[in-house]
């Protein structure tokens, strides 16, 4: 829930009923909950829509909407200074916005959990997503982040759990790349 206690107009999930079926975003949310994640930074993203909705509806999780993804790196560092665990949700294009700020994570050995929905790699209609999507993995590795990738819904929770363990156990950056296959092709013409 937002610190100031207000949502954003019509899509305010505090008033909108949550869809009832349990999918991978719900299981992922449970992992964040049981891992004690208390702040979640995000730039709105279609692939993370359900997870964001769950975070916003939870009174124990502060949802922090960001103007750019690098803000979420600095936010997580600040949260950790204050003893709280944080996570950053973004799409693959956002990884490019984080590069210099990841220096903070490496130099100070902050734990940093990043959940990245992939674009530009499978049934991508928009060629503008391809350049960044295709270099996400090597880029993150060059930034000293551990990278794991999930292609199927049943592996999401375990993979994120392992990333949590590594990020907060080894005080380092860990990214989970959520394949575009999990999210499905974006519908462009409705």
């Amino acid at each position: 829930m937002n610190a100031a206690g207000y949502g954003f107009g019509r899509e305010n999930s505090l008033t909108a009923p949550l869809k009832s079926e349990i999918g991978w975003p719900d299981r992922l949310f449970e992992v964040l909950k049981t891992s004690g994640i208390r702040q979640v930074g995000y730039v709105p993203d279609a692939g993370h829509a359900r997870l964001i909705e769950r975070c916003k509806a939870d009174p124990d999780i502060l949802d922090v909407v960001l103007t750019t993804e690098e803000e979420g790196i600095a936010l997580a560092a600040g949260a950790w200074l204050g003893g709280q665990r944080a996570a950053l949700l973004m799409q693959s294009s956002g990884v490019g916005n984080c590069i210099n700020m990841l220096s903070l994570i490496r130099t100070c050995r902050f734990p940093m959990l990043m959940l990245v929905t992939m674009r530009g790699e499978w049934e991508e209609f928009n060629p503008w997503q391809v350049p960044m999507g295709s270099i996400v993995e090597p880029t993150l590795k060059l930034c000293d982040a551990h990278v794991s990738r999930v292609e199927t819904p049943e592996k999401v929770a375990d993979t994120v759990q392992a990333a949590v363990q590594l990020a907060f156990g080894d005080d380092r950056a860990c990214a989970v790349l959520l394949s575009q296959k999990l999210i499905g092709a974006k519908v462009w013409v409705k």
Partner: protein
Amino acid sequence: MLERRAAMATLLANRRDDLFLVPGLGSTTWDAVAAGDDDRNFYLWGAMGGAVMIGLGLALAQPKLRVAVITGDGEMLMGMGSLATVGVQQPANLAIVVFDNGYYGETGMQASHTRGGVDLLEVARGCGIERILDVQDEAGLRELAGLIGTCDRTLFARVAIAADDPPRVLPIRDGVEIKDRVRRAVEAAG
């Protein structure tokens, strides 16, 4: 115009036990250590544009502590979007102070956007931060020093700083140690 070292010393003169400081990279970090090394200072040697977000993460994690971000105009300009992010969260325990000398001092005194007509007070106001202070003299500085410890809303202050370049005073450089010191201080204070 106020002299930067004296201004920082005034702001920290009667520092409350629960006041944590995030100075921006470069000059404001040197100002902070010149005013007296302190475990509650999260010195920055990099992460340009991230100071406000680090302060926000800490302020949200520890609502009972006070957090002051004291940074340069150049550093603030790089993270201007974070003022929008703060405007949504409205943490009551966060004060953002910009030492505005109109230059990028650390890199050799090149003119900054604030010399070119950009008004950071208007930016902060436009981001929904209600408590705004324009500090031009000693009296204003003393008012700000009090408010940093007591204000019940997010505060944004611009301090008119003379464009000089005092001799460097350098804090510790080891990021892990800087982080661990602050975390221990938070535990002790919280």
